């Protein structure tokens, strides 16, 4: 890799100042599971790498606040997957966190990094969308909160402006019985990049939504307008049409090595139906339990 300057700020304010000064010449280092590979392959050649791991405000922490869980930017996938509060309230996020990379990667990779990297195949994007996550952004003008759906823009692109960085991700704890499930399509069971990432969420009122990624420039969140998908009384075979409608935004790449467009489109339906069934099952369990 090319030589670069290395900075280790002690506060978010220092990091923001460095980012503002260096703009695109600077890259942030949290877990480093994306950055180090990019450096090694010369995909990025920053002049400055800003290490965020010594900023106490970003230190790994999952904090329960009134009505939501706040996950600091330094929190790694393993911590999220093992947290009992996350397991209880946000099972679909756990299902996504435990399939990111490998055991070693999950011990280093942060969820904030997963979102900031801007990969259309980011595993945590669909559950964050379904759970209405809010991204907390610090910048020269102070702190702002952005809905994750607005934060994710396109491949490698986020809503972050010059001088800004993510300090935390806030996840509302569902205020009503809620069922959600995450699933993905891969070429093998072990470590793999997903050809489809998909999360379905339903509530007792029959409101259903599906977020899906890896089949377009970004992960999309789509609300069911038919009212049929969230109805546990309707058999899944009779939901084909509204389900298909959910995936109209899908535009899988023709050039991908991982799966053909036809296969991806067909699998969206299969995975969508399966995730929906699981989500409905979880909702029923919550209602009964």
């Amino acid at each position, binding site marked *: 890799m090319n030589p670069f300057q290395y900075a280790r700020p002690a506060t978010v304010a220092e990091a923001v100042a460095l980012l503002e000064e260096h703009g695109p010449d600077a890259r942030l280092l949290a877990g480093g599971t994306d950055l180090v590979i990019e450096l090694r392959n010369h995909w990025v050649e920053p002049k400055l790498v800003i290490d965020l791991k010594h900023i106490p405000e970003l230190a790994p922490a999952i904090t329960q606040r009134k009505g939501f869980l706040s996950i600091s930017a330094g929190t790694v996938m393993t911590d999220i997957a093992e947290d009992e509060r996350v397991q209880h309230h946000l099972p679909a996020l756990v299902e996504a966190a435990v399939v990111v990379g490998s055991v070693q990667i999950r011990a280093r990779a942060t969820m904030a990094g997963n979102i900031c990297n801007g990969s259309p195949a980011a595993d945590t994007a669909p559950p964050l969308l379904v759970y209405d996550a809010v991204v907390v952004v610090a910048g020269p003008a102070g702190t702002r909160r952005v809905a994750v759906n607005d934060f994710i823009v396109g491949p490698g692109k986020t809503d972050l402006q010059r001088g800004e960085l993510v300090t935390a991700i806030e996840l509302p704890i569902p205020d009503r019985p809620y069922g959600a499930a995450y699933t993905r399509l891969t*070429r*093998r*069971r072990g470590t793999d990049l997903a050809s489809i990432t998909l999360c379905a969420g339903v509530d007792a009122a029959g409101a259903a939504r599906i977020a899906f990624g890896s089949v377009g420039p970004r992960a999309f969140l789509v609300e069911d307008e038919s009212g049929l998908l969230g109805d546990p009384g309707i058999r899944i075979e009779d939901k084909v049409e509204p389900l298909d409608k959910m995936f109209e935004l899908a535009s899988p790449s023709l050039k991908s*090595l991982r*799966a053909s467009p036809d296969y991806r489109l067909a699998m969206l339906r*299969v995975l969508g139906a399966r995730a929906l069934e699981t989500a409905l099952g979880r909702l029923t369990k919550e209602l009964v339990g």
Partner: protein
Amino acid sequence: MSAQSVGSSPRRGGGYGRVTGHQEYLADIKLPDMLHVKLVTLDVARARINSIDVSEAESLPGVAFVMTAADLPDPMPRFGPQFQDRPVIADGETKYHGEPVAAVAAETKDAAEEGARRVKVDYEKLEGGIFNVTDALAPDAVLVQDPSLRGDSPFAQTNVIDEKRFGWGDIEAQESDLVVEDNFQFPMVTHFAIEPHGFMAAPTGDGIEIWSTIQHPYLLQKIMAKMLQLPLSKVRVHAPDPGGGFGGKQIPKFEPLVAFMALRAGRPVRLVLTLDETFQQVRRSSAEIRIRAGFTSEGALTFMDVETNFLVGAYVDIADRVVSKSSYAAAGPYRIPAVKIIGRTIVSHTTPSTAFRGFGIPQIGWARESLIDEAALQLGMDRLEIRLLNLARYKEAFIPMEEADGDWEQTVRTAAKRIGWGDPLPPNRGRGIAVGLKSGPTTGLSYSTVRLLYDGSAMVYAGTSDMGQGARTIFAQIASDELGVPVEQISVVMGDTAVVPYDQQTSASRSSVLMGTAVQRACFDIQGKVRAMAAELYGVDEAAIKIDSGNLLLPDRDVAIVDAMQQALAPLGGEVIGNGEMRKQKDPNHPLGGTAAFFEFNCTASEVEVDMETGHVTLVKHVTVGDVGRSLNPQQVTAQDDGAAIQGLGHTLMEHYIFDDEGRIRNIGAIDYRILTSMDLPLEMHSESIENADGPGPYGIKGVSEGSLLVTAPAVAAAVREATGVLIRDLPLTPQRVWEALQEAKDGS
């Protein structure tokens, strides 16, 4: 003799170092004053090199020099095990994606990499690149190799290196009730050894020292001596235990390049490839197989007609031998009145293929076993029964000059029982069974020296490469039993041509049988010497002394060999040295140059469950049974079979090179070339051995380590076919491919 160590599984020699990180792999060896090398390659398969500008690269701090074809002798030195066709570095034209055109030597790895990026190559992409069999055989095809390199070959003006024809009987004269025919394809796959290839060279004043991850150090020594016009005694090859080989490290690759660079620099140089770079340098040959067979209505084979086109790559390497050896056994272990076999070695503008575990058999076995299933289906026969009916019985000649060297029926029945053949199946499940056969070594030459030291410990010298198969342990076990020395007190010395006597090669599952015999004979030599010493010491007639389990049996008592040696050598001490040799001569009358020393015979049976919506195949149970003669070290034999099975499941389910239209490999590296992980293993896996002590090696062993991947693909594909009703003729059986086949079947019905 009653063995003690043989048949047990003592702690693996070198195992502790491997699992704790203490083993010194080639990349761990640091030579003083060493330069690092990085290769310069082009993002294209076939290109003409107009000029190479090294000035900017050479002006970088830390860069010593850049080597190109212009810096090498003219004409370009070429080498290879069968044909001298591989240039030291690309000479005027690149013939595959990743063929180096220059090499940068620098004080650090980073500087070498930066230098490699700054080398400016003026090249033009050439049209007409040959990336598949059809293009290679087209009448107007570009010739991959310069005809002047092809000598007097009748195929010199084509892309065919050679055409092998084997067979017996007249296939046209056979009467058949059923004739089945089909075409199958086998993809390009790579070895994926965890340790990438590495090469180092250092000038010694009057010669050269080479370090390599090579499996065949003595072949490398021979090639380097010839190329540098040095006596063998001045070329010293160090071959540290490789971290996996699978055949991909048999044949020299960039050793000549680093040697020329070291001589130019007057300093040691080293090149360690990245995993990604190994993808471009070694692979298994792909193949297109057309196969036809006749059967009686009872299911007896009447004839078989197999034609295989192997697409071997830009340089022949050992691939032509892969073609001949696998084609020779193409008809498998069956009793067939008439057989016609054609195998073609076809060059292309792709990574040169080389030896790979199974040596061509997985490609042909895939087609043959799939076709036999089709015949069984059409005849309404059970797929196990049709195999048992046609299987050659013990000692029966099934190829002229070759007879069945094991009770193969026992192997097949054991596998069938283990998989639960015939038991009812749940929905979406299926089972498959297949048999495979691979010829062992046809020639061989191994020497071993064993030293019984005064304190009762011993040293074994063996030129085998232990790349994970466990040869160190096996040789220690043999010496332990023959000399009565505990395994822990035996050191096995390998990997240095200046210290260890000659061995032809580590390949074809030969080492336990051939080098094992040499080690055993070296121990016999010591036994004889100690017997003579004991006869004098105890005043006994030499002929009256028998030897058993490391003891001399005197008329009135038993004395340990070690005790007799110590008494005889006192008070000066010293040691007793034994030499052993195992030679399997060439047979000029045999089509392969010699009969097989043994056959690796394997029956693989698999049960799968298919997700009918996604095409995902779950391996519910996978069984392999091999006829190993005797399991010299049961733990290692099982591990070899498990490993081979898992590697076979790779090319069966997920491994394959993906090319673009210009012959570039698109899925280089571990991200988009998938191999099995522990999560992808069969839910249940069994590797079993048939042991009738009927092999040619010490204590009746045969070679092992390739059997379990010979017919993985047809066994699994047959199970998928039973579960889904669809026949797939291309590998691997990725979820997408299975799903597409299911869709086609749905649309067709």
